[in-house]
């Protein structure tokens, strides 16, 4: 997870700050994703995890600080190299297949075989003609994942993507994420599920009150005990 000497990290956040009126949901975050592996972003509700994800993806501009994509300020091209799965999937009012086609065409790809392959990977083979909005919650989230993978992202961001799903859907999504990681996709996922972080994550970043209060390799971090969120003064490494 550490960048080799001289290598340009995939994504860097520097002194990232977001103000919303009097609230500061993200307050001076420095974060580096060297590239590859799964990073779990954890912390209590209201810690600023989702906002940080939105900032890193360029969906909202920071009040201060900046995001670097491969060493350069994040722009539209950098954003198109990322994909995000939201907590509540936003599906187009079209068929399941058309939703994936839409993402593929956004990259200039028209390939029914590729689309069907993506649907098969997420367990939706045979449902291509069904209206997307008639899917169950788990199916809808898997379709959102297929759509995200359709753009072949270098960085996949997941905002509590499995938080509301049944165990079977969670297992299916996790299997896809493991396969994606093996193919070299960098994954940053917000999760409250320590067991899921243990299953998937190579490294963990913990936020509280808009700040990163700890991070480290997943195994060492999770083996530290039930109080996985250390207070800021414990001297956990900050980037």
């Amino acid at each position, binding site marked *: 997870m550490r960048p080799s000497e001289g290598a340009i990290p995939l994504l860097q956040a520097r002194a990232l700050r977001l103000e919303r009126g009097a609230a500061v949901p993200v307050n001076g975050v420095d974060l580096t994703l060297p590239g590859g592996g799964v990073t779990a972003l954890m912390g209590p509700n209201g810690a600023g995890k989702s906002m940080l994800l939105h900032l890193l*993806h360029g969906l909202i501009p920071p009040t201060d600080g900046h995001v670097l994509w491969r060493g350069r300020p994040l722009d539209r091209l950098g954003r198109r190299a*990322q994909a995000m799965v939201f907590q509540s999937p936003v599906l187009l009012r079209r068929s399941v297949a058309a939703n994936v086609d839409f993402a593929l065409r956004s990259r200039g790809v028209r390939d029914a075989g590729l689309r069907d392959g993506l649907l098969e990977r997420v367990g939706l083979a045979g449902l291509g003609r069904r209206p997307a909005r*008639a899917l169950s919650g788990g199916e809808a989230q898997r379709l959102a994942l297929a759509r995200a993978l359709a753009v072949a992202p270098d960085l996949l961001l997941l905002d509590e993507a499995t938080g509301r799903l049944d165990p079977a859907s969670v297992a299916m999504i996790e299997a896809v994420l493991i396969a994606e990681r093996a193919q070299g996709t960098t994954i940053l996922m917000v999760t409250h599920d320590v067991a899921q972080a243990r299953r998937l994550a190579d490294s963990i970043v913990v936020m509280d009150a808009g700040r990163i209060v700890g991070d480290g390799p997943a195994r060492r971090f999770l083996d530290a005990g039930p109080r996985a969120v250390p207070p800021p003064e414990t001297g956990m490494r900050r980037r």
Partner: protein
Amino acid sequence: MGDLSAAFALALDLVLSGDPALWEVVALSLRVSLTATALACLFGIPIGAALAVGRFPGRGAVLVLVNACMGLPPVVVGLLVYLHLSRAGPLGFLGLLYTPTAMIAAQCILIAPIVIALSRQVLEDLHAEYDAQFRSLGLGRAAVVWALIVDGRHALATVALAGFGRAVAEVGAVMIVGGNIDHLTRVMTTAIALETSRGELALALALGVVLMALALGVNAAAQGARLAGARHAAV
């Protein structure tokens, strides 16, 4: 009641007998209003979508202007089109005054603000729902507009119906630019006005009944198509 009963009886007789004069008027009414609606939608929906998506200085003023134009008085629109198409007007050389084309132009101008304003409202709501996803995909402005139009197609069909309803029921503008010429520019509304002025109330009412039935039929067909589409898209 007697007049109404006679009107319905006459309307039924005219429809069932296939009265060629009646169907000529009905056909022209449909041709003019459907063409005007199609043209207004062709330009109005993309403009409404652009207003829904775009943020630019003066956008608020444009929205106020478009909303205000929804209430354009038909006779004023007719007068403006007349002034442009009359022999002394800037477009007089086209020789379109007192033709169905002039009537289409007048109706198109009349309903375009309705189509633009309602499309903008419908698509702005949809855009608010899709915005984060579209930006996540890194879509350009044109792709966003097209996607919104495709996904808002059922609601936009209702917008088109509202425009058609306004167009087919309109009388002032088409009377001014069409002239209500028999076998050329006479449509149902102008025919009703003419028959009323002649004192032929039963015939006027009969035409009114046909007009109502026509509007009802078009709306029912569109509603059926909308429901079928909605079932398919599960919206």
